[in-house]
């Protein structure tokens, strides 16, 4: 997901190959980017359709886009409006789809936000409090490399079936990465920034909020973006296994009922959502962290 957006931005946006007659250079680059994006997706779709047309792709297993996008109202029937475990698809159509997306998205957002805030807080404590560092850091280093998916049984044992295990898994995915990134970044804040703050008479709190935090924020945001992909992965798994609603559950149900059209339809939605998420994070990064050039994560 993040890879696709980045490639669109850097490969096509930066190249400026095409020659369109009118518009500002920025708009033109934008249009060229969109044009290449559409060409890329179009080519991919075309190959798939051709494979279907010559009979190599079995439409029951790999239905090409024109098949899985053909009967949208019918497909939408599978999306339930209720966030209840085991709810039967009541056929709520578009609202059902939107609510399903909303459930999944809100789990991702909540998990990311919790992981980011708590990760920075714990990372800061590890950095500033020697006792905390000595006691916590070895455990964090031990737990950090464990794949978030491995936490799934734990999440279900502890939190049961419902929203919480999914949010917990997203949280786990970003938490350790943010903690370690925070610790590393805090150590590499330019000493002269801190000297300037001390000379100007800033208190420790002022120094943290107004110098240290802005100095490390760009890198932390980069860490968050890099872990977004993993966060989406685990939320779908959690939904397929332990939650009983959301896009992951639909995929799982589609697999169980051998509904390839529904699988691909849901995959398409997941792809678009991932793209939008990464775009959104980059947008926030651009607005909030305006001193960092786009695509550049490190603080100077």
């Amino acid at each position, binding site marked *: 997901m993040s890879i696709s957006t980045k490639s669109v931005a850097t490969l096509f946006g930066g190249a400026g190959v095409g020659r369109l007659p009118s518009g500002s250079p920025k708009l033109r680059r934008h249009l060229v980017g969109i044009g290449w994006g559409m060409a890329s997706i179009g080519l991919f779709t075309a190959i798939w359709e051709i494979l279907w047309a010559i009979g190599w792709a079995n439409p029951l297993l790999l239905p090409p886009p024109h098949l899985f996008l053909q009967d949208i109202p019918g497909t939408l029937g599978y999306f339930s409006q209720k966030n209840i475990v085991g709810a039967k698809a009541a056929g709520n159509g578009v609202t059902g789809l939107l609510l399903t997306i909303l459930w999944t998205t809100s789990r991702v957002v909540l998990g990311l936000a919790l992981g980011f805030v708590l990760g920075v807080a714990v990372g800061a404590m590890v950095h500033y409090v020697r006792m905390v560092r000595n006691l916590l850091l070895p455990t964090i280093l031990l737990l950090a490399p464990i794949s978030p998916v491995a936490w799934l049984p734990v999440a279900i044992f502890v939190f049961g079936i419902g929203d919480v295990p999914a949010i917990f898994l997203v949280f786990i995915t970003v938490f350790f990465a943010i903690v370690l990134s925070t610790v590393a970044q805090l150590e590499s804040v330019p000493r002269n920034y801190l000297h300037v703050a001390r*000379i100007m008479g800033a208190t420790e709190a002022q120094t943290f909020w107004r110098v240290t935090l802005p100095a490390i924020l760009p890198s932390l945001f980069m860490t968050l973006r890099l872990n977004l992909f993993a966060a989406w992965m685990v939320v779908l798994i959690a939904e397929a296994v332990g939650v009983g609603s959301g896009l992951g559950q639909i995929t799982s149900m589609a697999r169980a009922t051998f509904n390839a059209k529904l699988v691909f339809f849901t995959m398409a939605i997941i792809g678009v959502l991932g793209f939008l998420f990464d775009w959104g994070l980059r947008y926030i990064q651009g607005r909030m962290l305006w001193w960092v050039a786009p695509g550049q994560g490190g603080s100077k």
Partner: protein
Amino acid sequence: MTRPAVSIKNVAKTWTPEGRPPVHALRNLSLDVMPGEFVVLLGPSGCGKSTLLYMIAGLEGTSGGVIEQDGAFVTEPSAERGLIFQEASLFPWLTILDNVAFGLSVRGVPVAERRAVAADMLRKVGLGDMMEKKPDELSGGMRQRAACARALAMRPKVLMMDEPFAALDVQTRSKMQDFLLQIWRDSGASVILVTHSIDEAIALADRVVVFTSRPGQVKTIVPIDLPRPRPSRDPRYHEYRDMFTELLADEVDRAFAEQEVV
């Protein structure tokens, strides 16, 4: 006799790296800097002149002796003793204006007032039309001028500079020296500047303090008795340069010899 702005009395600094013999960076160093005086610390690299600056700023403690500013012991950093580094070290997340206003905002000066002071200061250093720019958008010389404005906005009694122009190209460097003399006269602050450039020392200083190599001590203090500006074609300029070259050559040789022993 007037009271010195900064008084350094028998100061020593010793580093004790783990598992290795202690390093004596400075030993038995005494120096007075008078109000409004321009003092240049000149010495071979590693002689502890930057360390002395950090100790005057209050960022480092002394291992012996005391440092006083206007008769009071230096125990912690203060905006009365501004320090400018080799890199401007402006905060990239603030505009130039807010960078200069940072010290005032830490003190709780209201937005309108601190921005007015900062804008005034930026105009004085010739960055009046750069206020809303990011530090990245400025050239090295401009950034260093903004760093000066940031220090001057706090009305320091002493302005310290740690090789402030070392990262700049030669042309910018000489322009910055003129600029520095101008803000020094305007502000009335004492300036203590660290450099290893003999020309810079002659161009700027009232007095040049020549350091010995490690452990750093005052080798000699040379008043520069030339009216400013000091064109390098002046024969007396050359006399000074020859003298400093000789003084430093001894120290550099000694430092070299010692490194070989170690």
